[in-house]
């Protein structure tokens, strides 16, 4: 009935479901707390979770599975010849289907006890082969960057759906109310194809969108007042604000949205000290910094962000996403060696360091690490030494909580063109990641425009083969 306060439909629903308004409003401040989770998720999770949090290392531009994780002897054998007509028609971005096949530009070798073959582009990750779960049969639906970036993040090739981090924030909330539950560290060069909607909350409340965080003194936008305001002066002004708001609330009985706004300033103030503490690497030992390659110019940047990712999940951030690759990124149309060489050199050691560090701190058991791009690359060459986009078959690597270690799942065909055995669609991957976090992808729903929306849309099946 009009006349009673119903500031949001969600709150209205929860009210009718018997959840206290104030607790919901407060939980809403950071999308944290279970009261704000999906109605189906008022328990901690839907079933026991293997993973408590996620670090997603997004190699933007499309790293070549054929030169990194998916060895294809047939490519060496048939290099220079066109792909046989028997493979049938397939779409490409730049009309390369008749170009000659190209052998991997780096040799592969068996690694660890598992003997997983990984190329010499990634010696450090290769040395951790026994900890990796290499999915060689991923596939998506678009040959274009932005659509594939959206699909990998939101389950949809169209713009405007909530990203996986937003869904996880909505479903599980944060473990630390002084930090956002979903943090994104973009490449310092910017230029993600598709832009910030990749970490947007879509139709979910804005409190679930990815908060971008940068290394350095001002990690979050407007974290600190503009120059010249001492912390005493700020605190004194905040005290006036709190007193004004308390007096205002007292004249207006029982309005949870007023109380929530009052509290949001206290949280913001705590975040002012919490966030710089997260990015303060002075607390890390020299050995740790060396481990992540902070002492070397080519690994320093990505290593810093990997180390920050560990610090964030230690402090209860639920979902951390890192992007490697500016507007061009791993998009090796011209020359695989020339493109992937520097990217691998910049990321291989830090990624391995992150896995080693998480493992030595006992965090890998409850943290899922994802490595991958929006698609892979074509078996035939482009411009002689490069490769075009390939969404039809490529590799995504998982490690950590709840997934098999030293394991290869699925295959592409003999040329690495399409996923063949045990194919894993992007939505299957999403369903499996949600499962690892203790959520059924068919039950993590949000009502919008008359439909119960899901990360996985109408698709998505659990991939039991990769579960430990």
């Amino acid at each position, binding site marked *: 009935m009009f006349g009673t306060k119903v500031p949001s439909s969600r709150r209205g629903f929860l009210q009718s479901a018997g959840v206290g308004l104030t607790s919901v409003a407060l939980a*809403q401040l950071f999308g944290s707390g279970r009261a704000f989770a999906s109605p189906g998720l008022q328990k901690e999770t839907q079933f026991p979770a293997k993973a408590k949090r996620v670090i997603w290392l997004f190699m933007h531009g499309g790293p070549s599975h054929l030169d990194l994780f998916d060895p294809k002897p047939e490519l060496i054998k048939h290099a220079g010849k066109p792909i046989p007509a028997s493979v049938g028609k397939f779409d490409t971005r730049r009309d390369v289907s008749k170009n000659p096949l190209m052998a991997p530009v780096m040799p592969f070798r068996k690694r660890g006890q598992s003997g997983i073959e990984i190329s010499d582009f990634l010696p450090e990750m290769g040395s951790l082969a026994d900890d990796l779960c290499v999915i060689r049969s991923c596939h998506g639906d678009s040959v274009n960057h932005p659509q594939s970036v959206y699909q990998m993040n939101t389950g*949809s090739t*169209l713009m405007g759906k909530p990203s996986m981090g937003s869904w996880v924030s909505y479903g599980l909330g944060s473990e630390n109310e002084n930090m956002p539950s979903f943090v994104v560290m973009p490449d*310092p060069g910017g230029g993600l194809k598709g*832009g910030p909607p990749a970490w947007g909350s879509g139709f979910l409340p804005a409190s679930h969108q990815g908060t971008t965080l940068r290394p350095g003194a001002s990690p979050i936008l*407007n974290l600190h007042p503009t120059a010249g305001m001492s912390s005493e002066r700020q605190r*004194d002004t905040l005290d006036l604000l709190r007193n004004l708001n308390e007096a205002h609330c007292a004249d207006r009985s029982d309005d949870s949205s007023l109380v929530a706004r*009052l509290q949001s300033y206290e949280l913001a103030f705590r975040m002012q000290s919490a966030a710089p503490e997260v990015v303060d690497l002075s607390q890390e030992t020299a050995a740790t910094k060396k481990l992540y390659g902070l002492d070397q110019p080519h690994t320093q940047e990505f290593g810093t962000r990997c180390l920050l990712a560990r610090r964030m999940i230690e402090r209860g951030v639920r979902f951390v996403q890192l992007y490697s690759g500016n507007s061009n990124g791993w998009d090796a149309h011209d020359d695989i060696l020339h493109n992937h060489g520097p990217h691998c050199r910049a990321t291989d050691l830090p990624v391995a360091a992150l896995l080693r560090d998480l493992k030595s701190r006992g965090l890998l058991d409850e943290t899922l690490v994802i490595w991958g791009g929006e698609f892979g690359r074509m078996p035939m060459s482009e411009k002689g030494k490069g490769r075009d986009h390939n969404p039809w078959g490529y590799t995504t690597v998982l490690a950590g909580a709840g997934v098999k270690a030293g394991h290869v799942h699925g295959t592409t065909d003999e040329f690495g063109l399409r996923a063949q055995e045990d194919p894993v669609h992007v939505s299957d991957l999403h369903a499996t990641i949600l499962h690892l976090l203790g959520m059924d992808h068919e039950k993590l729903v949000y009502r919008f425009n008359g439909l119960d929306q899901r990360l996985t849309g109408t698709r998505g099946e659990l991939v039991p083969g990769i579960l430990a």
Partner: protein
Amino acid sequence: MDWTNVLPARAENSCQASSLDFLMAVHRRKSPSHLKTCWCVWVLLGGFLNPTSAIEASADPVKDEPPITPAAREFWAFKPLLRPTPPSILNPKLARNEIDLFFQANLETSGTALAPQARPETLIRRVTFDLTGLPPSPEEVREFTAAIQTYEAASGARGPDPYTLLVDRLLASPRYGEKSAQAWLDLARFAETDGFEHDAERKLAWKYRDWVIDSLNRDLSLNEFVARQIAGDEISPEQAAATGFLLAGPDMPDTNFQTERRHLLLNDITSTVGTVFLGLTVGCAQCHNHPFDPVSQADFYRLRAFFDNLPPLKKDQQLPAAMAEASNAPAVSVVSIRGDYQRPGPKVEPAFPRIADDSDSSLAFASLPNSSGRRMALARWLTRPDNRLFLRATANRLWQFHFGEALAATPNDLGHQGAVPTNPALLDWLATEIPARNWSLKAIHKLILTSATYRQAGNNENRPTSHHTEFARRRLSGEELRDAMLQVAGRLEFRGGGPSTRLPLPSDLAKSNTNKSKTKDQPPLTPNCRSVWIFTKRNEHQPLFDLFDRPDGLLSCSRRNETTTAPQALTLFNSEFSHGIARDLAARLLQTTADPTELVPAAPWQCFSRAPTAMEETLGLKFLNEHGRLTSDPTETLADYCLALLNSNAFCFVD
């Protein structure tokens, strides 16, 4: 329902996935009414339905189309629109117009009553923000309060009610169109770039925005307002800009799949038209029959057929800013099986959704030299004075515009999955009032605003008891916050239409979020203009708007979320913008007085459009006396006081 030729559920290829994607839904076999009541229950219980149940889609959606049953037409939104008689109420003195009779009658069934009328200073702030998005000035408040007192004290012959005069003045202000346009732009998923990878600018998109503002200010009749957005180009070339509505959504001109691009565009147009003008989620029926409402897949493609004369799209070419057909030869329209553009099904002719139309007359098109006339026929049908769904949907939105919560709380979905109206008689009466008042939006606004229901006190004046209802408080939107802050600082610049003002992003954000800017942004000419004139990108959002729940221009948004987050507090309290506003306001106040006892009330007068309460005054005085030890000069001290006021709930909420 008669379902045959059920296909397997899984999408088989990419194109299906992307169009199927619109669904993202539970497609269950339970009956709709059962689902509706049990939705909460099954989610809470973890889902009792078979998760592997197939999406039921036909290989011949025309042949297999289920008929509309008489029972389906009994659902409240689909019933013919009859004009209810205003009820009588126990205390007729409570009512100012018919709205109050309906409203109070509803309250009486639960033993409550309308709240007393709000105080003048509450009322003028409420209605001024409501119609202009800006706060009233202290002078306006004082004048209005005095006029009300004179009016109420007068006996015998009195002039017109000062409040009615105020409403008239606000509706006549150009600020009215600037404010009310935003709600419509949200519905139209309006932005000025393509989105996707390149987020290319649409150089002429502003023309649609300007058309909306101008039309609302001129009080263009609602039927024409709608007709021109569907078929303005078929009326006259000057009206073509209005059809920017159809083409306002995101688009990827460089996609390799141009046929898919066109398919998605047409489906987006159809879905948006259905949800905005009919309150019907027809988009749910693009791959198979609507799972909950009596809208078949064939209905969807018949509605789409009105738009199928869209000229071919060209790779790497942006959508035009306005609609124009290439010829009057009608396109052949087909149903896409399972929503897959690569699987053309049976042919269909343009027709209105059967549940929304029971006229038997066949459709005739008045074709033009270069246009099929199809869209004009749709526009004329939509705006018929007996189009129940259009009028209910519109009346419902207008109610939400003033009360925050619509009578049926899901304005883009009046179907079985949407909310039931809290006061169906009032909704229907208001719907019939639209054509009765010559389709004048301003007349309907005035009707609502002059009701006793709108003039009720909120719980700041009306200690809630079980006997009274109250006016629901609302938080200002991000755009209103920015505009109001500029206004109180004396910085707000008014500009007319034309290309948008480009407001730079904070440098931190610009660096890490976006593609390297291809065009160098010149410093904007009117950086302090109202927010509605600011250039809107899809891939790059102004943080103040983004944090305060502005929708992203990707899907039609009928109602914004209202979140409260710590990053909002950080931005409003710490940003350079806020500090600049606080300094300017302080400087402005110091122009008239340096006496703290005058400054303490002067600032709330500017920010809250009222005198401070005794408590506020005490707190302010204490602050100004003691805070100086932490600042370098009195202006800074006063600026901090202003900063606190601008961040306070008293400023950010409207009672």
